[in-house]
């Protein structure tokens, strides 16, 4: 597929979510807003440290459900990304807000919508 021309309007939205509750809400909101995305299972550095050095919870520290986080990647428009930020500020408490940021996209291929 030919590369699409760069558009200043496109950003890569990145969210790192450790709370399963917040993940549920964010996914629902993204569907409502119309932002597509890819979810990646991940682990924070401290989770890896705990996994490498188990003391009492050797098995449990290996389970993604109890230690992991999710990264959501979405190549979307700046306007839609702004709506996601507004949702986070409006609906998610400050302490629970996932680490969220955007980076500009120079070139892209395979974008849909």
């Amino acid at each position, binding site marked *: 597929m030919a590369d699409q021309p760069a558009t200043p309007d496109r950003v890569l939205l990145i969210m790192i979510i450790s*709370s*399963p*509750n917040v993940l549920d809400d964010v996914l629902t909101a993204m569907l409502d807003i119309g932002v597509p995305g890819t979810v990646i299972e991940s682990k924070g550095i*401290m989770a890896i*440290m*705990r996994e*490498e*050095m*188990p*003391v*009492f*919870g*050797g*098995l*449990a*520290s*290996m*389970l993604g*459900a*109890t*230690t992991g986080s999710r990264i959501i990647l979405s190549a979307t428009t700046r306007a839609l990304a702004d709506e996601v930020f507004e949702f986070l500020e409006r609906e998610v*408490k400050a*302490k*629970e807000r996932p680490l969220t940021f955007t980076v500009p996209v120079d070139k892209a291929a395979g974008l849909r919508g």
Partner: protein
Amino acid sequence: MFLAIVAVLGIGLAATSKPAYRLRRNRAIAGLLATGYPAMAIGFLLGPRAIGVIPDEPLQDAMPIAMIGLGWIGVMVGLQLRRDLISALPREVRRLTIADAIASSAVFGGLAALLLPVWTGQPDPATWWLGVALIGGGSIGWSMETRSLRRTGTSPAGDRLSLAVRAGGAVGGISAILVFGVASDLVVRDASGGQGFDLLAAAITIAITIVLAVALGIFGRYFLDVAGRQREHQLVVFIGIVVFAAGVATEMGLSPLMGAMLTGVVIANLAGDRLRGFERFILKAEHTVAVLFSVLAGILLDERIGWGGLAIVAAIVLARLAIKPALAAAVLRSTRAEDDRRGLPPLPRASAIYLGAARQSPLIAAMAVGLVLTEPSIYHQRLLAIVVFAGMICEIVALTGGANQRRRMLAREQPDPAFPAEPNLGASA
């Protein structure tokens, strides 16, 4: 009292700070820290028998805090006994944990039963039975950390072996708490303060412990649902579950560690998103609680164990080094034919990772601390010292032996069968 708590908390926070974690990137240091012995050494230095920054008396006042720690550890261990997790364990790991539980209880319990009467000078078994329960039950399982025994680089066989040893240690820990809890319930105190064996009372005690654990698990889930998504309310319920699990058990003369562990088992097997949040909360504090408990163990132990105590230490060390790694290797490799059929990488005949089974589980120190707190006596403080000294020696021997084995293999250009051939890493290997 205030200074004592501040000192202990300060050590706990320092040991789990970012610079401390940076230090743990060194594999040997990580291996040592995983068992808590450096923290115990600091606790001993600060305690009443060394520098004396933390005197003896305030520790009894700090018992409620120590009980929270015991409850935390018990719940953390119990949370691992999830149906789906246990059924996913490889067959060789299940065989290993059963074999280890039987062998360890028999060998180490037998050693304790032979040597403790001589050491204590007491012929009545009821007076030293708790020591048999501690050494026999607490010797089941081993430290779950395996990274310090591995060379750099990974291989499918090495990963498989590492996981098996780690899982064996984890499930062994659960068996250890159960065996210790049941065995220690066999001895009861009568109204005059004397001790004796009472099987009926033990059975009732165990039944009450199970009922309490189930009730607490179910109520815990209910209250977590009531707390909803309010973090502050959730925190209150989390801590309440931990405190009740150990505190109620202690007040009723039950084993706090076993009561808390069974509560963790119930919670792990109940459905509910809130309970998964509880699990995460408990596990995140693992290292901090471990350091705090290790410091407490160091403060409480009484190092004056005499030649008899040293003989018990030597017996435990020799038995662990002679039996555990060989048992682990034999049982884990007993499924070779099945592994070939399933296309799994064969486990190596020799590897430094098997030495992980010789390393004592940190749970035995937690059990010994619980014993000192619930039944304070110089005998129990010296028992704590015995298990700590035995564990330290096993740790040093296992880590040194593992390093030597890897060095010899590299020098002879025979790669560790668990790992693919590696370039000569020189001093960094």
